[in-house]
């Protein structure tokens, strides 16, 4: 049987090449797995839901099993969602697994992306894979958004109206795009059917392709690992794919499925029956998108309602600026690997991860970005925070407005200082050993604490990272005394490089000479 298959598929050589593929062990390397498994769960439950969902905006009068909606006019989409929730066997559970898995999937991608960012795993050769991952995150956001809109309930309808407003705010093409997308005036009769195609076919199709490509690249590049004794840029220390890693990954899939199913079984998500069908003349307070669109919601909520009226046209800056900032924030994180590699000018491959403290400026920039993101997430839920913490909505809005600019700066400075402090502590540990907590009294009465020297392994781990020297612009004249042309780009690069690796922006790691000098018998210090 295996021979038969090998003759046709060549599985022997494939298996030989890949079965012993090594994966390193670290809990943070399993964040991507959480995403992969929740994605699979979403697809499986989504297929089940398509069997019962009617993506139609034809209006009917409801006479199903949910009594508080009897006699209400609603679209078939909403009615079939009620039917899935109350009449289809296991329907509500599957719906809740699908929705919870989506919430967790995108949160998982966010954390996975941050892990890759803060450990520098995006460096050569993994820039493309970083972009694939970024695209998956953004597509995940929009797939989630289109899915959230499908039941055509009052909450999601408000969300779509909000999005339509953002589209309309786009100068020149906004109205055309809106008319094109909704097939006429909002809400029209096409929205649900179109979003359905996008949600179940177009976006997940692209995402599935990207996931496969993402995984192939992980295989091709081999997984990164944290520095440590025996781990170099040229090897991978860990467990083979078969059988150890496969068993672990398979088990982990069921653990993820179990946790999500347990949550879905116990906690309500999006109780559409309580929300009512969408009608453009109705709205509820506390209308928010799912969390991954929350920062976009926040951007619009806290933006002052500026607008410009010119030659009979209105430019709605109050919505258009947030739309631009939304894009910029996403693009900023996407292009970061290219910016950093330009600054370092490093063309080598990196398979060993950085500890975040050893790249203080990068870590600080990442934390600043996350801070801005989280501040806007807070802005997106300003009304809920106002009622539940008994604060003024306006005060929260002003806090968010200020914190969006001040917060990242403060976060940058604080994070950088913490990283530098940790670097100094590492250097101190290398040179002077670990504080043992044992106090010794010397014959002449002095008290000293005994420092235990670190093991060779620990010493290696703490000093394995390499440190860049800042890029120089070079002399302004060449060897012949002729004025050398220094472009603006080179100057900027030198300046940024100094900010990353210059004096005061990283702590020089202890050299072997320093170590020898201190440990060469001058006694404990």
């Amino acid at each position: 049987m295996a021979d038969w298959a090998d003759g046709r598929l060549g599985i022997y050589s494939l298996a030989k090449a890949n079965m012993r593929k090594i994966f390193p062990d670290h809990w943070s390397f399993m964040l991507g797995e959480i995403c992969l498994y929740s994605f699979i769960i979403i697809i499986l439950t989504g297929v089940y839901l398509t069997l019962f969902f009617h993506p139609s905006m034809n209006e009917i009068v409801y006479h199903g099993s949910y009594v508080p909606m009897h006699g209400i006019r609603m679209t078939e989409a909403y009615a079939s969602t009620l039917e899935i929730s109350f009449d289809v066997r296991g329907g509500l559970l599957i719906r809740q697994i699908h929705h919870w898995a989506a919430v967790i999937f995108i949160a998982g991608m966010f954390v996975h992306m941050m892990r890759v960012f803060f450990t520098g795993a995006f460096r050569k050769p993994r820039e493309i894979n970083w972009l694939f991952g970024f695209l998956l995150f953004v597509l995940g956001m929009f797939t989630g958004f289109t899915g959230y809109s499908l039941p055509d309930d009052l909450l999601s309808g408000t969300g779509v109206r909000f999005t339509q407003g953002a589209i309309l705010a786009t100068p020149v093409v906004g109205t055309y795009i809106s008319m094109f997308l909704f097939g006429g005036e909002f809400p029209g009769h096409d929205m649900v059917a179109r979003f359905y195609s996008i949600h179940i076919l177009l976006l997940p199709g692209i995402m599935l392709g990207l996931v496969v490509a993402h995984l192939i690249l992980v295989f091709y590049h081999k997984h990164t690992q944290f520095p440590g004794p025996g781990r170099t840029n040229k090897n991978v220390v860990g467990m083979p794919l078969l059988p150890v890693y496969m068993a672990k990954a398979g088990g982990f899939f069921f653990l993820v499925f179990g946790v999500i199913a347990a949550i879905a079984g116990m906690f309500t998500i999006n109780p559409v029956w309580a929300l009512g069908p969408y009608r453009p003349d109705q709205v509820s307070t506390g209308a928010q998108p799912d969390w991954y669109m929350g920062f976009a919601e926040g951007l619009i909520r806290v933006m002052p309602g500026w607008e410009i009226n010119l030659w009979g046209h209105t430019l709605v800056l109050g919505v258009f600026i947030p739309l631009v900032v939304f894009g910029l924030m996403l693009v900023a994180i996407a292009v970061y690997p290219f910016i950093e590699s330009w600054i370092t000018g490093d063309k080598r491959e990196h398979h060993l991860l950085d500890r975040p403290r050893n790249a203080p400026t990068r870590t600080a920039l990442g934390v600043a970005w996350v801070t801005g993101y989280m501040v806007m997430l807070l802005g997106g839920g300003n009304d809920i925070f106002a009622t539940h913490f008994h604060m003024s909505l306006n005060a929260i809005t002003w806090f968010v407005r200020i914190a969006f600019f001040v917060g990242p700066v403060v976060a940058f400075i604080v994070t950088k200082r913490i990283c530098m402090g940790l670097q100094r502590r590492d250097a101190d540990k290398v040179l002077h050993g670990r504080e043992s907590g044992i106090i010794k009294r010397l014959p002449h009465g002095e008290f000293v604490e005994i420092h235990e020297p670190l093991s060779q392994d620990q010493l290696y781990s703490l000093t394995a990272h390499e440190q860049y020297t800042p890029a120089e612009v070079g002399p302004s004249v060449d060897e012949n005394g002729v004025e050398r042309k220094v472009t603006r780009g080179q100057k900027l690069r030198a300046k940024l490089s100094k900010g990353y690796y210059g004096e005061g922006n990283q702590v020089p790691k202890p050299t072997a000479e320093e170590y020898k000098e201190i440990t060469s018998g001058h006694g404990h210090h």
Partner: protein
Amino acid sequence: MKKLSARRRHPLAAVVVLLLALAATGGLYAAFAPASKAQADETAQSLAIDEGKKLYAVGCSSCHGTGGQGTSDGPPLVGVGSAAVDFQVGTGRMPAQQPGPQVPEKRKVYSQAEIDQLAAYVASLGAGPITPTEEQYNPEGADIAKGGELFRTNCAQCHNFTGEGGALTNGKYAPSLEGVSPKHIYEAMQTGPQNMPSFPDTTMPEQEKKDIIAYIKTVNGEETPTPGGFALGGLGPVSEGLFGWIFGLGSLIAVAVWVAAHTAKAKKS
């Protein structure tokens, strides 16, 4: 007649005519006007008003004025009606504890009998919405679905889909409707307390108020079923997102740490 006509140019004639006219008007008024309060009235209503006035003087007059005319600290109560008093005092909002963006609900200070007396006194200051009878607000047999539609059209923009409450500007808020009695919901709609608009019977008939009360009691009552499990406050995506991050992703990361800690290792670290 001749004598009279002879004196019609007398300097005091105008005065005499005026006096006569006044006397006639006054006499007619005295004869036909409804019985005034000056007459001793010993009905239950008037006793309630008297008692209410005493309670009012002690508990309310410092802000609302001795005669309900209002001061800089409280609005006039002329014409607010007994329903407003029953709502404000019955939910403990009045007497207010301290000034602020909004007076919160708290434990009520007066007994229902005292509240009725206060209501009777305030109602006597000027006509206004009357405390509803049980027949008016009892939601039994009302149309829940219609109530839901009315609720989403008129109430949800401040009180949320199922009446969980919501934020207004500058620290004001639309309170949660959980556990509010049908009578108080009815009175709130009738009188429009604090920041709420009023929905008098002319714009929202009694039957529609009943429908709304029935809807609130169905979707946000003590016996409301939550088929999906714990409702997480019924607040929508914010609480769901927080829960998903902290408990969903959080427990998955905990599981990941656990799995990674139980691996076959060449060397235990």
